[in-house]
């Protein structure tokens, strides 16, 4: 599974961090970090994060 975030669209709401904390997080400077190729077992979480993103900036492949 591959995860892409369109950082031009991302507004740092952090809804992905709430929906899938094992994939998404903020670093100390408040920048979004994510696992680009997380384990397949996290697919449901990844889809939930993509759905929850208010800017629809997350693509799960």
């Amino acid at each position, binding site marked *: 599974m591959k995860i892409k975030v369109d950082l031009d669209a991302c507004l740092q709401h952090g*809804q992905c961090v709430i929906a899938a904390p094992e994939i998404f997080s903020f670093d100390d400077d*408040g920048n979004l970090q994510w696992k680009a190729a997380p384990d397949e077992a996290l697919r449901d979480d990844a889809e939930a994060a993509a759905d929850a993103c208010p800017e629809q900036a997350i693509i799960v492949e």
Partner: protein
Amino acid sequence: MPSDVQSNTSLPFLDVSDPAFSIRSQAVAKARDGSWCARTPYGLAVLRYDDVQKMLRHPKMRQGSYRWPSHNDVTGNFARWWENMLLSQEGNDHARLRRMANPAFSPKLITSLKPRFEELANRLIDDFAPRGECDFIAEFTEPYATGVICDLLGLPIEKWRDLADIAGDMGLALGVTFKQDLPRIEAATQRIFAYAEELVEHRRKEPSDDFIGTLVKANQDRSQLSDQELLDMIVLAIFGGIDTTRNQLGLAMVTFIEHPDQWALLGDNPDLARAAVEEVMRVRPTITWVTREATEAFTYNDLQIPQGTTVHLFSQSAGSDPAEFPNAEFDITAKRSPHFGFGGGTHHCLGHFIARGDMTEALKLLARRLKNPRFNGNAKWLPDSGNTGAVTLPIAFDQA
């Protein structure tokens, strides 16, 4: 030396509690030109786009209206709900509740409702269009906003009046006469919970993948979403979805009446409806500010913000900030930075896919069917601050 909020008399002062105060006034624009923030009778107002954006995501800020009932010395069922529902929660509890609610508000589920939005809008327009005039609030935005919630909940559309009245009575809790209105507010709270309980009971017997069915499924793991939290969430969807959408669509019509070429443009180009919703919410958001509270003391832009400071983030003045929008004139074809009409950060509106979807369909059909809309008598308004909008809006138009 950073200076303290209260003692800093060099900061502009805005009396937001004066009923005559307008968040769109010259006074606010002038305050914004000179200062990123202003003092108000209850804490600080943040005026500029860039600072509203940062404050919405500031780690030392929490949502600020959770204390509203205790601030008014109110207890009871409404207060219990208010203090426990999603918007009043922070940290792990907020995240847990939001995770549980997310699937019911997912774009996929909402997209499936689109044909129903269209049907409802058309039916309401059919009823008044031949007359060439209507009260746009009583005859369109209120039944539409409430009808959408009926559809979402799986209630028959005939229930809309009852639901709108309940939401209206509960909404009195947000006003200055909260304490005097308490008996009405408590009665409405009881009725709304009775609806929620009935809906849940029905869906437990007849499971499905609709909105309530999806929440009921989340409630199967009671450690993640308790029975009470399930009901509280349904009540929040009803409470949070009706007046907001009603007011926002009314403000859309007002804005377009003031910009007739934009309405004609939309009528000819229905694909602009989605962008029109965003542009309306930038220039005339119904929620003109969201409230936050400092969880610890911190310094921001050289200003000391003590723990417990209430901070109002002015979405309205951010949306017309010349530093972000040099050409701020209403234009549904312009490429814009995002507005704050749905808030932002962890509390970003959970119902925005619904609201964006239903308002897009409504504007598309309205612009096609009602030509040259104009004011037709005296509108009645909520104060031009806080949660604003028209309560009655008589308009006339030419039927297409």
